[in-house]
């Protein structure tokens, strides 16, 4: 659990800005066009309405061409500094011919190799790339990189059916229940877990064979995992990558009058993390007693901060 503390501290020291690009690719038919554009616009609206200070750009329909995407990526390369974060979200259909992945957009498609060439030029210290298309697993090998969280909707390039992962990714940004640690922020890991679970649930409830299995890779060298466990390596970066912030915690952190209380809070959170870590090795009664005491202290401290 120690990484959580690291995450909280990181979250308090937010990057200067986060630059988002969301692209809805070619649907091929009206129904898909409508869906892809709808999901992309939802994401864009949520980001623009959040407290993240987002620079969000969305490309949809006829405007989602390779040229426009190149321009948007070039602009991000110019804009993003080392303290900034960058997020690219691709929605639509993709193809994989066994060697190359292609994101289907009006006009010529864009390959993962070309995408990688842009992304690798970004100076943003942290990157999140979410490829939510069919066959997106085929892009994993070339798009993974150190300090980059990569999420793909399919486990390989051979899962070719249209995906619904993007629907639930968009939903994760709007549904407070995606914020499982209740820190008023949605991390990439939380959104991934939410969307993956909802996607799996969709196929299960519809009694359909699941034709997409999303993966997360954030070590820069792995094959991607379906259930990342930060303690075991995969997901650590994603857990620290704040995708969206919607609460007031950030404001409180800036208030010097509350610094002492915040330090106290951090100390208590650290103790709780430590205690949870030791849970298996101590009698249940003792654990419960100590946890209760710490949680009470933390609640009182938070109450004081909120005053």
């Amino acid at each position: 659990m120690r990484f959580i503390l690291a995450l909280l501290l990181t979250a308090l020291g937010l990057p200067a800005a986060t630059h988002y690009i969301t692209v809805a690719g070619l649907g091929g038919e009206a129904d898909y066009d409508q869906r892809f554009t709808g999901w992309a616009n939802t994401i864009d609206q949520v980001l623009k309405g959040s407290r993240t200070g987002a620079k969000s750009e969305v490309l949809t329909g006829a405007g989602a061409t390779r040229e426009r995407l190149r321009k948007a990526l070039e602009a991000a390369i110019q804009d993003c500094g080392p303290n900034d974060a960058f997020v690219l979200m691709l929605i639509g259909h993709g193809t994989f011919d066994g060697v190359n992945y292609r994101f289907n957009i009006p006009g010529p498609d864009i390959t993962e190799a070309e995408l990688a060439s842009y992304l690798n030029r970004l100076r943003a210290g942290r990157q999140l790339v979410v490829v939510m298309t069919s066959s997106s697993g085929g892009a994993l090998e070339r798009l993974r990189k150190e300090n980059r969280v990569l999420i793909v909707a399919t486990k390989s390039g051979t899962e070719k059916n249209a995906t619904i992962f993007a629907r639930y990714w968009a939903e994760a940004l709007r549904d407070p229940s995606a914020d499982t640690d209740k820190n008023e922020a949605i991390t990439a890991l939380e959104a991934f877990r939410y969307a993956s679970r909802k996607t799996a649930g969709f196929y299960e409830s519809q009694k359909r064979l699941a034709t997409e299995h999303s993966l997360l890779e954030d070590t820069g060298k792995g094959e991607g995992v379906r259930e990342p466990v930060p303690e075991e390596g995969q997901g650590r970066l994603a857990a620290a990558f704040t995708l969206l912030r919607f609460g007031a915690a950030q404001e409180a952190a800036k208030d010097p009058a509350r610094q002492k209380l915040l330090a106290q809070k951090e100390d208590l959170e650290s103790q709780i993390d430590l205690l949870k870590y030791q849970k298996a090795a101590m009698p249940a009664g003792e654990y419960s007693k100590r946890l209760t005491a710490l949680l009470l202290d933390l609640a009182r401290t938070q109450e004081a901060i909120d005053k």
Partner: protein
Amino acid sequence: MRLLGRLLGSLLLVAAPLAAQTLDSCRQSYRRGLLAEADRCYQALRASPDPYLRAEANWALDRYREANEAFKQALAAQPGNPDYRDRMGRLYLSHEQTQDAVDLFNEALELKPDHAGALTGLALAAAGGFDAAAIRLAEKALAASPRQIEARVLLATIALEDNNPEKAAEEADKALGVDPQSLEALAIKATIDLLDDKPDSPHLATILKLNPAFGEAYQTAARFFVFNRRYEEAIELYRKALKLNPRLYRARAELGLNLMRLGHDAEARKHLEACYNAGNTYPSVGNPLRLLDSYRNFRYIRRGNYVLKLHEKEADLLEPYVEAELQRAMATLEKKYRTRLDHPVQLELYPDHEDFAVRILGMPGMSALGVTFANVVAMDSPTARRPGEYHWASTLWHELSHVYTLAATRQRMPRWFTEGMAVYEETATSPEWGDRISPQVILAIRDKKLLPVAQLDRGFVHPTYPEQVVVSYFQAGRVCKFIERKWGFDKLLDMTRAFGELKTTPAVIREQLGMTPEEFDKQFLAWVEDETRVTVEGFEGWKKGMQRIRELVNKEQHDDILREAPAVRDLYQDYVEAGNLYQVIADAWLAKGDREAAAAELELYARAGGKDPAVLKLLATLLEEQGRKKEAIQALSRINHIYPLDEELRRRLGGLLLEAGDAQGAVREFRALVAMKPLDQAASFFNLARAYNSAGRQEEAMEQVLLSLEAAPGYRPAQRLLLELSR
């Protein structure tokens, strides 16, 4: 499953002059009940140079693989011999390889178009699937060879399945006219007596005199007892069959399956394993054994007069809903049918439909939703079907009704009446429940395809057109409703009692309703036609109207939809499936910004029996927006009876109940949410803590709030509740 019994009785004499006598003598020994002698004879025959004789000998000695190999050699040696193909087909039929068997029968018929054995084989295969074509094929076999006793016995069997003992006896007599010592025909006659509660059947005595080891007679009877839902008696008959001949593996397998049906799993396993180990590895043995293995994943919840058997993965979630409905149904039906059960009810829910099918038949591929075996009810869990496809609570009441009506008559009730009562009970519980009138039913009424009441059982057992089973359920339900409307519910109870005395349908109609079955049919048809007139007469108009409305929807002409669609909807108000006009009209109102009108339309949808959880959730949202929280709770509560496995549903319903002051209800909903192990653990524990706190259960509230904060220590609402609880 009934095929082997018939098969063993078949005495096809095939052309192989010298050896046939030996084969014939083996068969004669078996027919006289000299089982050891027959075995010795077959053992000797296994050494024959003739592969066909080896095949028959190995088969008789339960050496199926060797029999199969020998048949292949026989066919290779004489590819033009239709008899071999027929017999090999019978071997396959006995091992549930029906399609392979049918292929062989057809090949035999290509070689000899009037081959009576192959025609009978096809008839048996069809009868195995309750296909009405069985009768035609059996008659064709008899036309080819009037001495084809096996085909005649099949006709008797089918008649008895149709609950027509007179015709069954007539067919059996015809068979006895050909061979007065036909054990199979005598077995049919004995079965008729046994079903009629005459245990000292003279036919049984004759059979045992001719063949003291002819367990097949009891096996035949047992199958009909199963067919008539008299499972416990069937089990005793199977035991008798095996006592006479322990090597009747088909009987043993059926005994195993029926023991399993009644929940005697340990003994069931013993018999099924014995079959499997003897080489009977066909699906109806292997599947139940696999299912029995999976029972370790089920939880048995035993309380007083019932046992719930739920899959571990959903037991915590389903238990409160299923238990509440079961208790309600049992209390209601006990009072209504004035019947106390002498055994606890066991209710089993299967999340995998194919497991449920195996539980019922030993085979996958069945479409039913629930089945009752005496006091055991097995049914699909809500998760076995797509959300909106299945109303589990309605099914539960349907099956529970069987438990009570069958108990009231000691399982002596015609199929149409017990099904009719069960369908009747679904809508009696709630008019929104039960199946809606379907297009197939509309067409059946329009085309005058409803059966006379005296023949209604046939519609369930041997349908003559694909939709007849569905139509028969509808008809049986409406017959019961008609009786209740005209004579009162007590008349249905009187009829139940009369059926319990083994009276036939015509006799019960005459005695209880004071009219002939023909007069009853006349009155019933007039009533049902009147009741469905708008829909039946308007059906073609409705179909055309639906096309027109679809065009308007595609053009987004909302005003036109709102002007035209209500009249089309009212032609067929029961249509609540995909593309229904309630949703179309509600969508049009929403597009025009009138959310109140949209809610009103969706309320009509719910009242008409609409089951789509997404639509019911939309209705709840609209009602909530209008401050109609009570109705919103009702809308969401409906979904509990359809597809309770929905985190959002639990969260919303729990929240509304808490707001409405129903703390216990909120506890139930939030507990169920926690049981679903949602991603958002912190909020789920917190909500449950709130509900407990509101219910005055502070200790449990404290437990839950600590769990919430353990998951998310900084969760402020939970922190506030913790402080409140600590003060």
